């Protein structure tokens, strides 16, 4: 068994890419088989968890405001939900925000090296949020094949194309996974912008600080005939950036800036780190740790 905080040999070794496992070997990471978590009993258990403790927890911690759900009116069949990523709260928040039509037939693309590090976390992730392992540290076809097979079977996919949580409050450039799967399976991508979860439980925080959040759903994006995945990924990123602008200002201002190609970038200005942090304004994270009025001597 492998534990994230312990290194080999105190923890199980990582598996080199391209090496076939011995028959009967216990599998974790990208090899973990999550099929059991999509069987009826597991789905029923997940429904109870999502609609019960997860929803209550999200409400207590993040008090989400959800906007733009009307844009999904008329959308049929499976879809890929692509959101920016600030916090471990994002997946539970979206699981309770995605409309019922997709919510209970939804898998979440989760980092194989983190959520599927050992059999315990793998089972918990697969059961609680319907996670499937996605290899993010090396190029591998199996993750994409597995996700595509599920989409073809009618499952929707929740994916964070930034590939990981934000480290400084700004977003990261989108990778091509969502766009590639959309092109391959001919399903639309629903861009989503999440605001506020980074302040509540951002990367590096030891405990959450309750606050408010906002989830803005965008209009579904369909790949254009002959469009390359990289170009489509750029469109998805631009759509999320427009939603971020909409959340920060208003819809009309965001539309006008988007029409002029002047939507503020998700990744922020290319400046020194303190200026990037300064440019976040009210979106800056509070300093972690205890605050005292006077220094202790």
């Amino acid at each position: 068994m492998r534990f994230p905080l312990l290194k080999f040999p105190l923890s199980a070794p990582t598996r080199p890419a391209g090496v076939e496992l011995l028959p009967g070997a216990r599998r974790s990471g990208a090899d973990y088989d999550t099929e059991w978590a999509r069987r009826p009993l597991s789905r029923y258990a997940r429904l109870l968890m999502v609609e019960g403790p997860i929803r209550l927890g999200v409400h207590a911690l993040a008090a989400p405001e959800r906007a733009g759900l009307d844009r999904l009116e008329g959308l049929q069949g499976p879809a890929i939900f692509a959101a920016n990523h600030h916090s471990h709260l994002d997946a539970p928040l979206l699981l309770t925000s995605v409309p019922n039509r997709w919510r209970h037939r939804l898998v979440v693309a989760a980092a194989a090296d983190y959520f599927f590090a050992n059999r315990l976390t793998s089972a918990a992730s697969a059961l609680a949020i319907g996670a499937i392992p996605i290899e993010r540290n090396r190029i591998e076809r199996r993750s994409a094949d597995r996700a595509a097979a599920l989409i073809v079977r009618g499952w929707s996919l929740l994916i964070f194309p930034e590939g990981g949580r934000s480290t400084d409050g700004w977003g990261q450039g989108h990778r091509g996974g969502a766009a590639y799967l959309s092109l391959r399976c001919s399903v639309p991508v629903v861009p989503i912008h999440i605001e506020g979860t980074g302040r509540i439980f951002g990367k590096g925080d030891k405990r959450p600080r309750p606050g408010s959040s906002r989830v803005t759903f965008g209009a579904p994006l369909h790949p254009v005939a002959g469009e390359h995945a990289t170009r489509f990924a750029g469109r998805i990123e631009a759509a999320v950036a427009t939603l971020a602008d909409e959340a920060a200002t208003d819809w009309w201002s965001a539309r006008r800036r988007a029409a002029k190609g002047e939507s503020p970038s998700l990744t922020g200005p290319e400046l020194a780190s303190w200026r990037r942090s300064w440019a976040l304004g009210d979106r800056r994270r509070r300093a972690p740790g205890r605050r005292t009025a006077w220094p202790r001597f």
Partner: protein
Amino acid sequence: MSPRPGFVMEVDRSTPPTLFMHGEGFRLQSLPVGSRIVYPPEALPTVADIDGAIRSALVDPVDSEPLSALLFPGMRLTIAFDDVSLPLPPMRRPDVRQRVIEAVLDLAAAAGVDDVHLIAALALHRRMTEAELRHAVGDRVYDAFAPRGQLYNFDAEDPDALTFVGETDQGEEVEISKRAAESDLLVYVNINLVAMDGGHKSTATGLASYRSLRHHHNVRTLQRSRSFMDQHRSELHSSNWRMGKVLRDAGVKIFQIETTLNNDTFPPPFDFLQKREWEWSARDRATFVASSKALDRAPNRVRRSVFHAVRAPHDLTGVAAGDVEAVHRLTTARVYDQQLVAVEGQTDVLTLGLPYICPYNVNSVMNPILVMSTALGYFFNLYRGRPLVREGGVLIVSHPTPWEFHPVHHPSYIDFFEQVLSETTDPLEVEKTYEQAYAEDEWYRHLYRTSYAYHGVHPFYMWYWGAHALQHLGAVIVVGGDTRAVRRLGFKPASTLRDALEMASDTVGRDPSITHFHAPPLMMADVT
């Protein structure tokens, strides 16, 4: 299965009792053998890709350049839209106005248009509340424009916000919103629920002042509109079309966007209200019994809140954009496709079950004047060709007709009911003696402009709305209504349908022909 058309059924001994709406409730009534029942057509199929259809209409309009070619940086763009009176019941979110307005604004953003105003075209109706505006245009549009004062209700009593455009060849004055008249482009976003809506009436009525409206909202015009739903035989429409010509000649550029909805009116659990009785499932029957018993026992306030929370599952059957008249021809044809039912011959007695809602009591009380207007104005006029009931015939209406008014929405209605109707119910006398005083009353004017009240003159228009029917009918009987309120309206009260039919025999003889108009959902009788 494709939707079935409307039809006329003759009642025999195997016919189950028929549903009558009765305000915030419903009843099953047995009609005499040999009576006819006019059933509405089923809901037409809806447009599969609504946003795509809207975009196509803007890109490829009728008798007009594409909308994008009419937009340019630095222009003044005004978007006017129909108010809370449409559709009925209010449709579930997203409202079709929101979809259209967002599509228009997307093009405006791409064209670099900065100066945009959105106006709820409510004429002399009450102002829309924030919640109602949000429902109509959506939160995104509301949050972007309302805080900056660029989304607002039309004010027909603000002299600084009105402009006199000219007169028609018949001397009718045209005075409309100054912002709309002076914009480089006025985009009107309409919902065409019935054939009366839309066309030049959208701007010439929706954005007009009393000075303009009095030329077609009067007894003479409305008595000569046969019917309001047939624009070629409607003096109301002729007057609006003349005013539309004045606007066009004065250089007011209008890009009209008209939408039509199907007649899918009630969501579950009330969807049985739009089914034919013999097709009710066990669940429908159980819902009817449970809900009618519960509603009978509930106080008025509770019943009203239950029904006014209904959001109709209406869906788009078509959208057209471009030149006002060309667009309206297409729209009217679509409305007729959904609503027309061929009926052979008139009837001696017409029965109606009036619903809880009409255009003027959304989130409000259906007071006795609105009962009159809905029955004799709207339902009576849902015909093409000839009225469904013969001249001198009897109209039997089922409605509780409570002596009850919404004090905020309908203050002038209260005085009209107490002061005017206690003296006379003759529309011509009412118009001649009382209209001007109510129209120019400063207190009503103040309430209209600053509160959520209908204009002082509005109850008069409601009374005139029924003037053609009052002239045509031999008697009006209200079943299950408040006796005093019904008598004040000049109608006869009856406790049961059987009593009403017995009373009708005084006017139409012992063996009359009887027809029941099984609405809602809305339909129109094409009477030959």
